[in-house]
């Protein structure tokens, strides 16, 4: 392999450094069975991006492959024109809530402060500056008063907000969020939407794995429809069409019905 060959591959050098996420020919397979297949994506800066598709469409896999959390079978991912490894400080990640043990002995504030660890680097302990940043992030998601709680003593929605506050504390330019809206209460859903809009106003890019077709067009201005392959990607207004949804959810009749109903609601 030539020096820096991975990042300088032909597919990536073509992507300018102002594109938050460029994916070229990405395939990921588990046990030789492809989960996502030949994905090409270009996400423009400053968009709220919904990633939508049926169960098993590879939405989480796509995010994890972008963040090097699972190996790529082939293809390349560029964050602002370079490989993820050299762009870590640009990226914030909100994993699925079930991915951690909520009985773990940490407080909400401890978890949010983890977002500042990269700036700290190895060996340096969390100080007052980091705690203040974490407190501010908790305040932005409206649960500063719960900072000292052990995380099990929070409701599901509050736990989700802790994760979002942690991503805020990372102070990234592009955020990857894996189903932040899954099983949260109405107040949390509102808080997440407000947060996404606030990030959007600051010019950040957010990629959000999302399930609820009814809210797609009001939450996101860019849409990626995924079912193993990218069915469509573009401004929500152009992409969120019955034809595209049928292609994405093909065969799952009741889901198509839901989708069409959602579409009707959206255009009303």
């Amino acid at each position, binding site marked *: 392999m030539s020096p820096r060959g991975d990042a300088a591959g032909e597919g990536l050098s073509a992507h300018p450094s102002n594109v938050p996420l460029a994916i070229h020919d990405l395939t990921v397979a588990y046990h030789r069975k492809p989960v996502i297949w030949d994905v090409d994506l270009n996400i423009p800066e400053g968009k709220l991006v919904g990633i939508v598709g049926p169960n098993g469409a590879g939405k989480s896999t796509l995010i994890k492959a972008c963040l090097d959390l699972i190996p790529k079978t082939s293809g390349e991912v560029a964050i602002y024109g370079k490989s993820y490894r050299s762009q870590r400080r640009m990226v914030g990640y909100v994993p699925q809530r079930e991915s951690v043990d909520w009985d773990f002995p940490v407080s909400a504030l401890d978890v949010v402060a983890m977002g500042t*660890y990269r700036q700290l680097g190895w060996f340096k302990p969390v100080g007052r500056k980091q705690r203040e940043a974490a407190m501010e992030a908790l305040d932005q998601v409206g649960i500063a008063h719960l900072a000292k709680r052990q995380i099990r003593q929070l*409701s599901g929605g509050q736990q989700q907000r802790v994760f979002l506050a942690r991503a805020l504390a990372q102070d990234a330019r592009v955020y990857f969020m894996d189903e932040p809206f899954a099983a949260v209460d109405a*107040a949390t859903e509102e808080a997440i939407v407000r947060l996404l809009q606030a990030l959007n106003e600051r010019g950040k890019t957010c990629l959000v794995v999302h399930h609820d077709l009814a809210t797609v067009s009001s939450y996101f201005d860019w849409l990626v429809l995924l079912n193993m392959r990218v069915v469509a990607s573009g401004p929500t207004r152009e992409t969120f069409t019955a034809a595209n949804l049928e292609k994405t959810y093909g065969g799952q009749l009741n889901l198509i019905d839901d989708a069409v109903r959602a579409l009707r609601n959206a255009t009303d």
Partner: protein
Amino acid sequence: MSWSTFDTWIVVAGALCAVACALPGCFLVLRRMSMMGDAISHAVLPGLAAAFLLTGSRTSLVMFVGAAIVGVLTAVFTQWISRFGNVDRGAAMGIVFTTMFAVGLIMIVQAADRVDLDPGCVLYGALELTPLDTWRVAGLEFPRVVGVMAVITALNLGVIAILFKELRLSTFDPGLSDTLGFSSQLIHYLLMTMVAVTTVAAFEAVGSIIVIAMLIVPAATALLVTRRLVPMLVIACGAGVLAAAAGHWMAVAVPAWFGADATSSSGMMAVASGLIFALAWLFGPAGGLLAGIFHRPPDGRSITNNET
């Protein structure tokens, strides 16, 4: 009963073993890898035997290095088998450590006439004999085991103090740890090295079975008392020290009530830590039985969903 300096040294040696084990033990329990201590403490046996057979010496440094290497290999093999063999991690651990323990036993039995390694000693240790083998440093005479365990305890304390934030992050959320640039693999192997070195060092004094009790029981006890990480580490160490003192006292005093001779101190230390765990299970404020009856701790799922 009469308490001699002998008894004091036995308690000090036991307490240092307990503290040295409880520190990495807390992270094993939190990573739901309690059995890893079990696996490593058994699997080091072929390392001990091989080190002896290769060098013919029983100096502890050689044995120590041999066993520590094999201990880390256990963690590596377990990782490989579970990843490439597509086997559950617990099963992979079972495959590795039983195989290695068996190999170690065969090596010891085969070389029995030449090797002064007694399987009984391997299992239960020889805590009662530790005051006989002493070091003299700067005019101070103390049992060798106390010196070794003091060094190991200081090392473990140092590693945890320096890497506290990294250990907490990678234990709680390995995915985030990786994305932030703190390799969770690297930290995993560091912790495994710590467990291997600690079990090998403590194992000479208290044996391979008791080491497991000292790794896991105080940590599990502390988790019933607190839901904070630093207090958990402190309480685990405290529970370990208490178990060491109470255990030795029980080993000497209790059989005397029935006119019997003193029994195994390390064995009684494990029993004592079990009793302390039972007390914490009954009365512990964080997940104890009575706490659950009289003061239902706020449970995330039972909080009404629209509370903000």
